């Protein structure tokens, strides 16, 4: 009897808890999207990486893996689950009817595509990661505002964010893992758990490098939150450094021992090398110049981080936690003074959500822009590439439609560039505008506040 009552209470809680409806909607959306659409370019690479591991060639002995090792370790785990638990033995096949598109200038398509069972494995893993990030945002917003409704909104904004859903369940890209570690870092810092904050930071920075830029702001927060207590400040920083170092060793020991440390940073070096490469067409030239611009902007990016950190560590202890989130928003947006691949922007979104809910509703236009535009840009970049699987295994799109569409994108227009390049430029510019909207909003808020302050004084 007692058990029945308890079970009824649990089910009642599940039915009525606002997070449950958000989770249900999010899972339903993901289930539909994950089955119907897959951009096979990246996930096909994960299949190659697993095959290399199965062959005993590790992460770097055979070509195929170009990131730092963390994601490789996760691929390894997911691959084992797929093979030993679900019996996935063949990852994909070549779709001959799509082979003609291999000759196009925009060559971010792979006709060696992975099966749905393989893709879903990764998409489920990313969905779990998305849930974890949502939960952490829920806890952070609740702790900063004391408002469960706002916290639930934070949960929903992340879990239902189109860019999050797209990155995890269409592109099957691992940016959300880096975001999870980054949000864990923030959470641990807010809880004064510096050892775990350091560990999380290392994992975040070496999943994808972008969270590494925030080190100045994180350090400033540690100093500011221990102001007046030098000993405590030193211990806190030391704990963070120890945590970060331990995680660094865990991640890189095999590479250090095997002498493959250089390969594990191929993600950076390959892009730098491509700057010097010959340009084969206008988009190659744009990309190559784009990488040069990224490099040239780095001093400005670092300068902004340092300036933000300086002002954060100087700021009043009252409201420090809220201000910390705001500075993280500005810092993370400043990483992308250039036009990034849409999935990179996931590191900005958690701070935007938190800052919007915790401190300033005037960021609503930025929030809408960051939710909508990057995912449209992703659709422009990946276009018909997300339909290959639908053509091959589900049959609701024909190869002719895909090939015809891609051929149209490949046509050179009156501007002397392909339609694909023209679309990339337009939507890339819009994405940049979406990122810059964070700064535009910040500046306009500062001006408005100054004006209202002046009016109040008068």
């Amino acid at each position, binding site marked *: 009897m007692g058990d029945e009552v308890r079970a009824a209470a649990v089910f009642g809680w599940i039915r009525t808890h606002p997070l449950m409806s958000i989770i249900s909607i999010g899972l339903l959306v993901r289930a539909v999207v994950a089955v119907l659409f897959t951009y096979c370019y990246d996930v096909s690479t994960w299949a190659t990486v697993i095959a290399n*591991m199965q062959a*005993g060639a590790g*992460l770097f002995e055979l070509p195929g893996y170009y990131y730092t090792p963390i994601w490789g370790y996760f691929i390894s*785990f997911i691959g084992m689950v797929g093979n030993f638990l679900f019996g996935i*033995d063949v990852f994909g096949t070549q779709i001959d009817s799509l082979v003609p598109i291999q000759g196009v200038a925009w060559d971010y398509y792979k006709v060696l595509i992975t099966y749905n069972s393989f893709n879903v494995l990764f998409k489920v893993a990313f969905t779990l990661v998305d849930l*974890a990030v949502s939960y952490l945002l829920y806890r952070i917003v609740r702790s900063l505002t004391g408002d469960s409704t706002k916290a639930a909104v934070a949960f929903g904004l992340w879990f239902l964010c189109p860019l999050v859903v797209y990155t995890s369940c269409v592109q099957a890209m691992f940016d959300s893992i880096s975001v999870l570690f980054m949000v864990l870092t923030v959470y641990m810092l807010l809880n004064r758990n510096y050892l775990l904050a350091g560990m*999380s930071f290392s994992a975040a920075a070496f999943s994808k490098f972008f969270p590494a830029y925030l080190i100045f702001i994180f350090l400033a927060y540690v100093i500011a939150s221990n102001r007046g207590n030098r000993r405590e400040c030193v211990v806190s920083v030391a704990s963070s450094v120890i945590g970060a170092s331990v995680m660094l060793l865990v991640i890189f020991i095999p590479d250090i021992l095997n002498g493959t440390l250089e390969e594990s940073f191929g993600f950076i070096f390959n892009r730098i090398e491509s700057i010097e490469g010959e340009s084969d067409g206008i988009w190659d030239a744009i990309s190559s110049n784009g990488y040069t611009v990224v490099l040239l902007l780095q001093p400005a990016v670092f300068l902004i981080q340092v300036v933000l950190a300086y002002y954060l560590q100087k700021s009043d202890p009252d409201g420090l936690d809220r201000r910390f989130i705001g500075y993280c928003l500005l810092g993370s947006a400043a990483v992308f003074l250039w036009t990034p691949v849409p999935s990179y922007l996931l590191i900005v979104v958690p701070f935007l959500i938190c800052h919007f809910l915790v401190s300033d509703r005037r960021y609503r236009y930025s929030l809408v822009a960051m939710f909508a535009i990057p995912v449209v840009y992703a659709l422009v970049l990946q276009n018909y590439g997300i339909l290959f699987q639908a053509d091959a295994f589900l049959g609701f799109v024909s190869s002719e439609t895909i090939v015809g569409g891609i051929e149209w994108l490949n046509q050179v227009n009156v501007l002397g560039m392909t339609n694909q390049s023209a679309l990339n430029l337009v939507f890339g510019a819009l994405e940049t505008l979406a990122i810059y909207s964070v700064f535009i909003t910040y500046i306009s808020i500062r001006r408005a506040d100054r004006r209202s302050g002046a009016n109040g004084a008068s």
Partner: protein
Amino acid sequence: MVRRDAAVAILVVMVAVMVVGEVAVYYVNPYSYGSNVYESEGGLEYSVESSGASEFRVIELDPGSVGPIERFYVYFDPDYGTIGLPDAEGSIDALVLDLEIHGVDATIVDAAALRDVVENVEPCGSCIIFITGAMPSTVYEGVSGDPILNWTASGGALYWLGETLGKYVGNQDGSVREVDEWWTLFYGEGCFNDSDDSVIGDVRGDPLGESICVRSSSVQFGMSTSVPDSKHIGYVSDTGYGSVGLAKYGSGMLCVIGGYFDDDTRSDLVQTVSSNVTYDSAVILDQVVNVRGGTTTGSLEESAGAVVYIFCGGYFSPYGARYIL
């Protein structure tokens, strides 16, 4: 401020997953594969085994006039000129490892050792693999009677991946020299696709290519379908070039993989070499076998000189083995 347990639990789970994956990559590989071909009371049999779930493909081929290949040489000399292969050393390492994974123990030979091979190693049953875009001047000067051409015509197999076969000579000073009318040494003008036009083949050639999971569609530098006694197991373009072409050359064979060295073309080269497919090979048996942790057996046809190639994973293949009957 907030409860720590859930967040710490998330971190612990993430790190645990990461470490388990790391251990599997570097310290305890949970995957193992094996195969065997043996005589039993019921005749010739094969067995395949896997620690997990695997789909094996068992292909028994009559290698035709070229016969089974038993000696494998990969040319690379850092001092001699190469063309179209930016990371020559890394590419060679990847190729040799991939061949090893698929049952082929290849020996890397430099320009001088290559000269020894073509002078002293029996061509029949031997092959030389080039991915350097140029053949070294120790064996090729671009004239009729060059040692490498004689060796191949005497029964050797020459596998080529990279810039047009025969067009470039690699010099000892690291430079590369272009050969005039190189095609006269092979099958005549247009025998290999020397133009940048139509670099994609979009129609599958011989079905054997699909069986061994040939995947690259690039016909740049590829062999013409009009070359006599040729077989095209990759994709064929409307301009008449194939992505993987094999052709009779004297008593030997030339195999040309179209395109530059990359993951796809490397895989095609490895599968073509390992399976011992030739311009006149014939399929004796082609079976797909699924294993779910353990060993499975099957029957083969007895055929002297046939080659059995067993691999798993299809287009993403982590294992291969070859047996000469």
